[in-house]
């Protein structure tokens, strides 16, 4: 152990801790909710602390690079498995821990008690997500994504009814096929370059014989198909809205993060493999146009949906489209702002999905149907009850939280969504040699998606909170209101701290454009000397 500072082992904690805790929780009897919840909460808090420490260490450049490299079992990088924590990875770990904390607390009163092994699956999901943020090897990434997906299959089914069964039947089939595509992509990349190690890949792609380029390109595209299925790019994302709408609210909130894992993988792999050299910028055009199509699809879907769960799903699709198009536009400055947008929209979508679970309580199916018929026949409703009754606090909270989510998702001022959208538009207009027409198209689609989002969400809000005269003030528990307030509070904090956050994201995206530093840092990481007296 000598020679390794303890902080080095912190990189492994986000994977190891949920694995061990989740496994231990299987042994605890299901009747002991409090104990299970307590252990899960403790583990999640520890994960948050670890993620924040890693974040701080990466940003203070306490590691050279600045990235922490962990060599599993002390094998040197191209041969063994290395885990890498740099600024971007640490940021995503923090995001994952924050969302998990909110979803877990939300699930305390109800959702975690209605089925078995909720906490174990929840921790395994965190393990998969965290693992997917840290990998350094394509096959390793595959394994972590499978862990994440396997846990999510169980969680989507949590609370077991016909809707969830039907949705997860399709969700699982699609993801199994995507995993097979992932494997084919990996195999082709291995066949053409002879490595799966991401740091080893970069120099080998640059030195590849042009005759082998088609094989590598095919492999990379098939790999990207698997990532983009997770990120729900059009036309690979039809599974998403029905899955989100069917899953229980805390699970759906975690699913929002899972779509971002696909985008993260692309941000990670693409600059390394196709950052420079003869294949630089390969397939970014496809990403850009795919992103635009996704934006359009998301906007149309948003206008067409009536339930909160589906709306949040289309909100996530819109944010995926925006991010993919930003990556495809291949301007370095856009990546930083895109990451800001990613954080804001993830937090808001997750908060909205949690909120949707609470709104369902005041919107009984009957009320929803009546509201629909009213719109279809344009009947004006005359409120019979006197106006001016004191608003119960629960309802006020729901309304305010809904407004907050809507502001971030649609990108209206003054919250984080607006800053992100404004930043993207501003950067797109900075083109010195005139703005080309695809960029104009992108900008108009950004605005159209915002408009569609505001129309759909406003319609939903008006119909839920204002039109029905006989609202039962729902019973809200603090453990259900707090996580939503927490997530929205973070969105507000993001708005206030926009300047330091932007500076940080600027540094993080700068790291991404320096694949050479990454390669040197990972491959040069020495294995520890064997302990004295041990076998050499």
């Amino acid at each position, binding site marked *: 152990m000598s020679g390794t500072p303890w902080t080095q082992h912190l990189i492994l904690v986000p994977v190891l801790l949920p694995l061990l805790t989740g496994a231990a929780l299987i042994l605890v009897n299901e009747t002991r909710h409090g104990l299970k919840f307590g252990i899960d909460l403790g583990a999640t808090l520890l994960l948050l602390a670890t993620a924040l420490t890693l974040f701080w260490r990466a940003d203070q450049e306490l590691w050279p690079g600045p990235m922490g490299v962990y060599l599993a079992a002390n094998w040197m990088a191209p041969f063994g498995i290395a885990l890498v924590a740099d600024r971007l990875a640490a940021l995503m770990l923090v995001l994952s821990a924050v969302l998990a904390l909110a979803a877990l607390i939300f699930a305390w009163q109800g959702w975690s008690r209605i089925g078995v092994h909720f906490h174990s699956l929840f921790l395994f999901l965190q393990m998969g997500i965290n693992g997917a943020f840290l990998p350094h090897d394509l096959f390793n990434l595959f394994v972590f994504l499978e862990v994440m997906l396997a846990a999510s299959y169980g969680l989507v089914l949590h609370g077991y009814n*016909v809707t969830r069964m039907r949705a997860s*039947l399709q969700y699982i089939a699609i993801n*199994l*096929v995507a995993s097979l595509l992932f494997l084919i992509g990996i*195999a082709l990349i291995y066949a053409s370059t002879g490595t799966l190690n991401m740091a080893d890949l970069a120099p080998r792609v640059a030195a590849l014989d042009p005759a082998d380029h088609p094989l590598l390109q095919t492999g990379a595209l098939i790999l990207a198909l698997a990532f983009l299925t997770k990120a729900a790019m059009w036309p690979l994302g039809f599974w998403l809205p029905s899955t989100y709408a069917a899953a229980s609210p805390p699970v759906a909130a975690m699913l929002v993060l899972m779509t971002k894992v696909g985008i993260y993988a692309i941000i990670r792999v693409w600059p390394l493999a196709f950052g420079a050299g003869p294949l630089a910028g390969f397939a970014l055009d496809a990403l850009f146009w795919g992103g635009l199509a996704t934006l359009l699809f998301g906007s149309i879907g948003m206008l067409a949906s009536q339930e909160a769960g589906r709306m949040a799903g289309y909100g996530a699709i819109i944010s995926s489209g925006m991010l993919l198009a930003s990556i495809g536009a291949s301007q370095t400055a856009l990546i930083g702002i895109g990451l800001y947008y990613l954080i804001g929209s993830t937090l808001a979508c997750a908060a909205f999905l949690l909120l949707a679970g609470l709104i369902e309580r005041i919107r009984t199916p009957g009320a929803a149907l009546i509201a629909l018929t009213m719109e279809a026949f344009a009947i004006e409703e005359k409120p019979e009850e006197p106006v001016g009754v004191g608003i119960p606090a629960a309802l006020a909270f729901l309304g305010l939280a809904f407004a907050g989510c809507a502001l971030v998702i649609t990108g209206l001022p003054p919250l984080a969504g607006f800053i992100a959208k404004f930043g993207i538009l501003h950067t797109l207009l900075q083109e010195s040699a005139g703005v080309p027409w695809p960029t104009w198209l992108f900008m108009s689609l950004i605005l159209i998606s915002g408009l569609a989002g505001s129309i759909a969400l406003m319609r939903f809000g008006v119909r839920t909170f204002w039109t029905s005269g006989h609202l039962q003030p729902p019973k809200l528990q603090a453990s259900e209101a707090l996580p939503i307030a927490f997530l929205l509070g973070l969105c507000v904090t993001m708005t206030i701290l926009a300047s330091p956050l932007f500076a940080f994201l600027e540094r993080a995206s700068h790291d991404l454009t320096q694949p050479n530093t990454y390669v040197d840092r990972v491959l040069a990481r020495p294995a520890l000397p064997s302990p004295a007296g041990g076998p050499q």
Partner: protein
Amino acid sequence: MEAVVAIAIGVLFGSGVWLILRPRTFQITIGLMLMSYAVNLFIFVMGRVWIDKAPLTLKPGIPAIGDYADPLSQALVLTAIVIGFATTALYLVIMIGARGLTGTDHVDGKEPKA
């Protein structure tokens, strides 16, 4: 040899694709299994087609590359088989559950109107 392997993988994968486009859950399961067989074989031959070579050589000294088959793709395929097996088993459970809850084996959970 390569052509035979390639055709075999292609036929397996093609049959799998056809089956997963069918509306019954059992067909989808079989389709997924065929596809995962094809993919496993595919990973296997991506380490090149070797005949009668050991994955590791125990001779002293630095081994010549031609003496042994690529061990990495064999390791990869082992992991892929295990994961594929587990997820297919999970899918079977859900398939049975869906059959019990909805009373039909159609993927949409209801019979199409004739």
